[in-house]
């Protein structure tokens, strides 16, 4: 079998563009899903049964559906059903953000719940408002528990962005698969794609480990 | 030293079952044991007392090679303690150990906890092991709790199961590492009573303890540790009523002991 690795170099700009889109998808999704997760977590913890019920349903729904299905759903169904038509990139972001917001909501809720009730009462006893207690006392302490999980969600998200390639968002996976089908250099392109993901993902995974060690709560 | 006198009377005509010669143990820069020499005779109850961190528990863990000594020699029945892990396993079958935190196996019932040693280590049949285990649980007063998991037992009950577990191996020697330190005050008594029964049977026991009343009442020999050394040893009457060294007096008075 003759291998022609030059094909990878030949299409370097297309691959580089794919890398940028993959990174862009990750950053934009997280930028939406962190506030999204906080809002969902606060809804879940609120006294309103409607808000907490809505949040519960949202979170459980998107945690229990394959992301690739959400991507298809956002692509085929959302434009017709809800009447919103978006670019492929924005559709991909929507699907990813729905998924990651649900996971983040659980992360924030668990983080907030991990703070002992006595801490809240001590804050309230000082005359703080509920919001102040949350901001000044609960969230800073919950941060230690939340950060490591957010970091590992980030690593998962980075990989999951590859799934939006099925709706032709020009991310790394999509561009590499496209080059593969145009040039028939299957082994070269697929291996290059795997290696590029590895080179980008490995440091992130290690960083996530470092964050987990740094913030480890000793009990 | 007068303790030497006591030892001569105590050891008259017998060979010690355990004999420590100048044992040392370091953890990094910290010297946990700094040259301890000591004899223990068959059938004796020996209590190790002294402040926290004085090396008492380190002695026990060195004795059954869970944490082998760095230097010095220990003779069990006249032959030196083994150094390899494989031989250490044989050694440990001869000594039962009871831990401060019980360390029952949470995924096994009380009965299974007592059976696990004979079944896995000695290859005893399950029927036979179960029969023996029932007897032992009865002996420690837990005949009605055989099917309970550790999570459903009180601390005192767990520790009594742990004692039965150690006895199931039919050890020549029992090591107790602060067996009542993790217990609620109201359950300490039930554990000490079981230990008293074992002492009355003439079993050889080494007990690291903070229970001075138990030491005074049950021990044949008391060893006082401080900073990795033996400060004084002797019969309980000497240690508690007429301590020969200033450091023993200090230790006991810190505990509020007044004879």
């Amino acid at each position, binding site marked *: 079998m003759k291998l022609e690795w030059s094909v990878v170099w030949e299409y370097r700009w297309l691959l580089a563009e794919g890398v940028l889109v993959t990174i862009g998808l990750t950053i934009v999704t997280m930028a939406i899903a962190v506030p999204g997760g906080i809002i969902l977590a606060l809804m879940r913890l609120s006294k309103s049964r409607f808000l907490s019920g809505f949040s519960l349903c949202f979170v459980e729904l998107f945690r229990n559906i394959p992301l690739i*299905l959400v991507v298809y759903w956002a692509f085929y169904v959302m*434009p017709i059903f809800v*009447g919103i038509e978006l670019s492929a990139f924005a559709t991909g972001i929507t699907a990813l953000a729905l998924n990651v917001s649900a996971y983040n909501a659980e992360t924030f809720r668990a983080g907030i719940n991990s703070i002992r009730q006595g801490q809240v009462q001590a804050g309230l006893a000082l005359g703080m408002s509920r919001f102040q207690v949350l901001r000044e006392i609960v969230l800073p302490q919950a941060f230690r528990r939340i950060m490591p999980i957010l970091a590992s969600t980030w690593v998962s998200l980075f990989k999951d962005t590859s799934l939006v390639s099925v709706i032709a968002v020009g991310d790394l996976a999509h561009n590499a698969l496209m080059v593969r089908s145009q040039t028939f250099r299957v082994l070269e392109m697929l291996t290059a794609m*795997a290696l590029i993901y590895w080179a980008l993902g490995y440091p992130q995974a290690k960083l996530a480990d470092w964050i987990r060690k740094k913030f480890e709560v000793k009990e | 030293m007068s303790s030497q006198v006591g030892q001569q009377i105590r050891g008259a005509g017998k060979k010690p079952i355990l004999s420590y010669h100048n044992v040392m143990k370091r953890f990094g820069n910290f010297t946990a044991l700094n040259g301890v020499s000591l004899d223990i005779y068959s059938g004796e109850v020996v209590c190790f007392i002294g402040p926290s961190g004085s090396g008492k528990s380190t002695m026990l863990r060195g004795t059954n090679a869970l944490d082998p000594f760095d230097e010095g020699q220990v003779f069990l029945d006249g032959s030196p303690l083994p150094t390899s892990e494989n031989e250490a396993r044989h050694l440990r079958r001869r000594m039962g150990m009871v831990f401060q935190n019980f360390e029952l196996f949470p995924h096994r019932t009380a009965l299974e906890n007592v059976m696990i040693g004979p079944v896995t280590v000695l290859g005893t049949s399950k029927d036979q092991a179960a029969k023996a285990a029932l007897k032992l649980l009865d002996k420690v007063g837990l005949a009605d709790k055989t099917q309970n998991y550790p999570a459903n037992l009180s601390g005192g009950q767990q520790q009594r199961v742990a004692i039965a577990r150690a006895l199931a191996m039919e050890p020549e020697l029992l090591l107790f590492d602060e067996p009542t330190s993790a217990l609620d005050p109201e359950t300490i008594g039930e554990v000490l009573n079981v230990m008293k029964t074992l002492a009355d049977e003439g079993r050889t026991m080494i007990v690291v303890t903070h229970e001075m009343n138990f030491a005074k009442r049950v021990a044949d020999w008391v060893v006082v540790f401080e900073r990795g050394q033996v400060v004084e040893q002797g019969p309980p009457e000497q240690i508690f009523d007429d301590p020969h060294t200033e450091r023993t007096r200090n230790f006991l008075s810190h505990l509020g002991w007044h004879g």
Partner: protein
Amino acid sequence: MGAPFSLRVNFVELDFSPIFESWRFLANGLLVTIQLAILCCIASLAFGILGGIGRVYGGWVLKGIITFYVDTMRSIPVLVVIVWIYFALPLVSGYSLPPFWSAFLAITIHVAAYVIEITRAGIESIRPGQVRAAQALGMSHWQILREVVLPQALIRVLPSIGSIVSVTIKDIAIASVIAVPEYMKQSETLAAQSFHPIEVFTFAMFVYFCILFPTTRLIDRLYRRLAHLGQS
């Protein structure tokens, strides 16, 4: 299709009849998903638990290899692994695997890495005192692992095993890209052929939810019943 950002809910067009008409086609897909899920879970648990033991007790070479494998799988998307195994591996090995077994291999390789991490965490969470107590009874290393450490570790990580099952089922949906006739692929096909993507994909969401939600709940409940057996 509506203009951008105009909200219009259109119930009139909803027609679920293609789903009922093609239920056998979808049911076959579901069966493939379940078969693949069971196979992948068994294989990745077996492989992952062994790997986890090696990761904790192995020599430095074995530990290094396992760590590298785990971190590699943590950094490469499962889609990439599936596509590589299906399209590229035959070019290297000379044997081509059918889509079903390609998916099985890729997903098992991927999920086993997570099982290794979970097993390692479980083993390392066992208090050293438990091992000491077993040692004090004279047990060998192997006996301690089999009788004391592993049973407790596996009970402790049950919730994580539950999420592994869920991840596996979701990963199998990704195998639709290599045309494994599992539920996701069948839904795509039906959506395209029937021109009713709304109904088909929405129904697929419902189906997946009905599988995944009870599965994770069931394992959580099992854990709550067994949790005390892992607490030392």
